[in-house]
């Protein structure tokens, strides 16, 4: 794996390999000594042009547990916030001997550009680019889902997600998590339905490999998992995507009543950070069905696997 820019870059075999490696990584994380020597001497740069503490910490932990040297540039207090260009930063990183760059950026396609513009030869891992993609989030969601469904039904881990029914609810239009999830879950054979007000579904969504619905109540009884997306408050009012927070919550919020529409085994997922009371109620977020805390823990294992395959994969293969 040269770069990880989009969930669409992963074939079924690639994705399953990554999830399997993540399982191995997770197993090591249950030990008392969590650190592995795998990436000793390699340098991973976390380049965060956009603030995201949780994703940054998750990648830092993943790299450190593989014994890589980690350098973090984040939006505050570095040249990044002073308007230094992505290109100049890339050249600097190259000069510093970075082996991989984990990039978070507000512009869609920034990771693609860093990987392919000819500025540097460094491997790039997309940690969220604008409203485009966030592939490691989709991988950790798939990892979490696969584990939970396998615990219940058993079977070949390579096939657990085949036919799994997943609803993704909320602001699909602006969500990099939704795009990556649709692509990855399709690759793994799951059946995805996007549920959102029409204003928050992009023009062109009809060509995506999934179904869409405007009726959450109708969808919930038939799913194995519901992934709730974060809704930004600035999308309403002046943004005009929906009339009010109250109306959004009434029509698309996952509350106690809707929780009871789900099949008994169905999971509740959220990429965080949550707006409790807007897209998800406390009852739903804190219910035993919720995997939200688990997703965070699994994020480290999945990012360890991604870094491993990016940096050590060729030696190992």
């Amino acid at each position, binding site marked *: 794996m040269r770069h990880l820019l989009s969930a669409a870059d992963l074939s079924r075999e690639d994705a399953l390999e990554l999830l399997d490696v993540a399982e191995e990584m997770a197993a090591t994380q249950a030990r008392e000594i969590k650190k592995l020597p795998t990436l000793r001497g390699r340098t991973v740069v976390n380049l965060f042009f956009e603030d995201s503490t949780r994703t940054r910490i998750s990648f830092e932990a993943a790299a450190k547990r593989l014994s890589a040297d980690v350098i973090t540039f984040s939006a505050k207090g570095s040249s990044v916030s002073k308007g230094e260009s992505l290109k100049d930063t890339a050249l600097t990183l190259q000069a510093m001997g970075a082996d991989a760059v984990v990039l978070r950026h507000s*512009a869609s396609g920034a990771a693609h550009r860093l990987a392919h513009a000819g500025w540097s030869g460094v491997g790039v891992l997309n940690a969220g680019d604008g409203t485009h993609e966030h592939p490691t989030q989709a991988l950790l969601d798939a990892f979490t889902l696969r584990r939970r469904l396998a615990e219940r039904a058993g079977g070949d881990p390579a096939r657990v997600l085949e036919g799994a029914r997943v609803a993704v609810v909320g602001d699909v239009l602006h969500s990099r998590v939704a795009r990556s999830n649709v692509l990855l879950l399709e690759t793994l054979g799951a059946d995805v339905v996007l549920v959102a007000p029409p204003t928050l579904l992009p023009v062109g969504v009809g060509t995506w490999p999934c179904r869409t619905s405007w009726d959450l109540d109708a969808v919930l009884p038939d799913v194995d998992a519901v992934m709730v997306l974060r809704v930004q408050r600035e999308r309403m009012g002046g943004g005009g995507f929906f009339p009010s927070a109250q109306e959004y919550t009434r029509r698309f919020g996952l509350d106690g009543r809707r929780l009871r529409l789900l099949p008994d085994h169905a999971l509740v997922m959220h990429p965080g950070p949550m707006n409790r009371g807007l897209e998800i109620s406390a009852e739903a977020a804190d219910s035993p069905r919720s995997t939200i805390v688990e997703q965070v823990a699994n994020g480290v294992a999945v990012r360890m696997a991604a870094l491993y395959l990016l940096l050590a994969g060729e030696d190992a293969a």
Partner: protein
Amino acid sequence: MSTTDTPAPTGAAGDGAVPPVLVRRARLLGGEETDLLLAGGRVARTGPGGSLEAPDGARVVEAAGLVALPGLVDLHTHLREPGREDAETVRTGSRAAALGGFTAVHAMANTDPVADTAGVVEQVWRLGREVGLVDVRPVGAVTVGLAGERLAELGAMATSAARVRVFSDDGRCVHDPVLMRRALEYVRSVDGVVAQHAQDPRLTEGAQMHEGVVSSVLGLRGWPAVAEEAVIARDVLLADHVGSRLHVCHVSTAGSVEILRWAKARGVDVTAEVTPHHLLLTDELVRGYDPVYKVNPPLRTRADVEALREAVADGTVDVVATDHAPHPVEDKDCEWAAAAMGMTGLETALSVVQEALVETGLLGWADVARVLSSAPARIGRLEDHGRPLAEGEPAHLVLVDPAARRPVTPEQHATQGRNSPYRGMELPGRVVATVLRGRPVVLDGALVGDEPAGAPGAS
């Protein structure tokens, strides 16, 4: 065709230094081999291929196998001077234009300062004369500072030495319907035309690319076709209501074509242009996030490209205009959202038209002369350009080798811009010679001397 008429006397005002030129065996508009004797800034004599003798001191241009067209006229060029000389100057843009086969270009008004006064348009016009490679015809801004609030002094620009006839806030849309109505009405008194950049500003806030399948996947904010079509629909109705002439810049969607077809059938005095890139490229190219494909209006779908080609073929779209928009490298060598919009086009326009319209059988060379020369000259009221290559007519012409094929290498272009979307593509056709007012400015595909001795007719 007569070969017995007395040639116009050489040494007419301003052209005394230009020796006669005999163009031998050029295929006139792609037809019969013809000799053209150019003297005194005019086509002095024509005759069947090989029939004319070169007068003493004449330069002979052997043109067997080449197609002769009237000098091309661009209705939509960004020369960037004054203000953005790091992107282009009147000199570098003129060189690019001449090498592309153009003998006249309309320089858009979105400079710094904006070309919204007689002083600025005269400055641009004068710079064009000093360079002397093409006739530079400034476009005047419709509104002061392109701000869309109050009319610029359109009359003063029209009666200035620059004789402005095309007015445009290009880059911005004249969105206020009352202001647009007033502009359409007012320019009638100077035989002018309002060239509208049709883009509803609210529907395109932050827009990055065509809104559709590809934008949904790439997570780039969409520029919906309706934002163009709604403005065109309003404007043709306004032009009809007040009986004015309207020109629509860079039409990019199939829906716009339908509206224009309807308006023309209804008798509205509307003309429209399409860019070469909208005739060849689609939004699929954006998938790699390379900002060289970022342009406004954006690249659309294959269906739009097909509709636009048909529209040029059936005359619904009158003109191919380049929207040549050079940018410094740093404005494109960045992430998509941070990049400037626009593509270079002067040096590739004729090749793209050949590729998209001639090789597909939609246009013949006489049609190419119409869409790249006579129609834009008529819309811009350039009486001296876009004329037939016939005796007594102005000697502006371009010789094209239609059999040539070559890869596009932006580093070899004369424009300062390296932002050509055709990099690496192999395109047909090569401009061999460009003649302005009887004087060859391009020969063998290269500029004739870098410092031409003064503009013809300059006082």
